[in-house]
């Protein structure tokens, strides 16, 4: 049969169209610097393979022409796209890295071999959300507190050297006090946030990273309280012979507190 030239060209192009990548819908041009994966594409190879001629046959049944006019090619594409996977994904999500076509027909996955799911243990979503919010703040305030504590310890060492090994100018006293009270306040806020966080799930059995974090922080709390008392006492012993001894204890406990806090943070971070 002699085909008109236009129909002959379309007959050649239609199979090529049927394997070409084709956007699922009008595809916005990606912004510069935006990954191509940000735009969802559907490839026809993702759909169960079907010959474009079968689409032509289907079109013929619907009154179309076997010579594959553009309408038929479009019908073929539309059918392939309708059966493309990913229809249940949330919009705007990229395809699964290893994702390929879900089988259909005799190999369909439309089955349920296990029956209704058993009742899952209830999870208090609200409590989980509140916990995450409070622990997020706990993490932020805790890291800030660690920075303040580090600065307090460094300035405290400088203050000790100035007072007992240098010119005794007292130039670090005010800075050390300011940093020390800020550290104490941040420690109290951070600890309170952690204690207020609800624990809606059964905790892990055994010793884990969080257990180490908690033990370290309880130790740091005791040391920090001692540290505060020793700091005030050291200052009150100005002019007395035992001031240096108390200051050494204050210094040593300051380093121990820093180590305990460091261990507590390191338990979660590393």
């Amino acid at each position, binding site marked *: 049969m002699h085909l008109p030239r236009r129909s002959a060209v379309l007959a050649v192009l239609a199979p090529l169209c049927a394997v070409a990548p084709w956007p699922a819908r009008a595809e916005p041009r990606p912004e510069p610097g935006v990954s191509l994966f940000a735009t969802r594409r559907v490839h026809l190879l993702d759909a169960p393979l079907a010959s474009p001629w079968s689409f032509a046959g289907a079109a013929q049944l619907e009154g179309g022409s076997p010579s594959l006019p553009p309408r038929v090619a479009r019908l073929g594409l539309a059918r392939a796209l309708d059966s493309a996977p990913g229809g249940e*994904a949330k919009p705007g999500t990229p*395809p699964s890295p290893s994702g390929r076509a879900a089988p259909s027909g005799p190999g*369909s996955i439309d089955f349920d071999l296990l029956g209704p799911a058993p009742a*899952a*243990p209830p999870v208090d979503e609200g409590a*989980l959300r509140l916990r995450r919010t409070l622990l997020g703040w706990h993490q932020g305030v805790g*890291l800030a507190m660690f920075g303040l504590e580090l600065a307090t310890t460094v300035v405290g060492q400088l203050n000790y050297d100035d007072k007992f090994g240098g010119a005794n100018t007292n130039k670090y006293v005010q800075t050390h006090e300011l940093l020390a009270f800020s550290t104490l306040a941040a420690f109290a806020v951070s600890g309170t946030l952690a204690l207020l966080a609800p624990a809606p799930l059964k905790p892990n059995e055994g010793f884990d990273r969080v257990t180490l974090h908690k033990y370290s922080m309880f130790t740091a709390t005791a040391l920090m309280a001692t540290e505060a008392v020793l700091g005030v006492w050291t200052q009150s012993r100005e002019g007395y012979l035992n001031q240096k001894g108390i200051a050494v204890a204050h210094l040593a406990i300051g380093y121990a507190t820093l180590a305990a806090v460091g261990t507590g943070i390191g338990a979660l971070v590393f």
Partner: protein
Amino acid sequence: MTRSLFVLWLALALPAGGSYRVDAAGSRVEYTIVHKLHRVEGKSSDIEGRALVKGNGTVQAMVRVPVASFRSGDGNRDEHMLEAVEAGKYPFVVFKGVANLGPERALPAGPLEMQGEVELHGVKRPIVVPLSLALQPDGSIRGRGSFEVSLDAHGVERPSLLFVKIEDHCHIDFELTLREER
């Protein structure tokens, strides 16, 4: 020799209409997620699964695991993961797949490609899982495989530590013991 091979073939061929259940005690599913500072593995043996072998060699399989059953060795992190996958709304991760053993229904020597979908966080994504199957001396079948899922593709808001999010890909490893149902 031919007879021995035939006996071996009979031993490796699965019965038509055979139904297999996952033996949770001898099975595990494990996920691995990666953070800049950590590589985290969470395991679960609380697995429900079943496979059906049809007369034409088609195998249908379904596996269901409660997300709350995964343990990573850090209770706080497990709670964080449950919040990320909204365990209250979507309590299970489900895999469904089909494969074809051919009309002989013989266990393949190499990996068997199972096509299906994985449902996580209420979002289903198509996936192909290479599955290694081996007949055990006790008559059970050992199935092993691994695949990756994209947390973003499943709409999971990735958890973060020190304000840095975990990587998008989540590697799943599984080892299942299947016993024939009588």
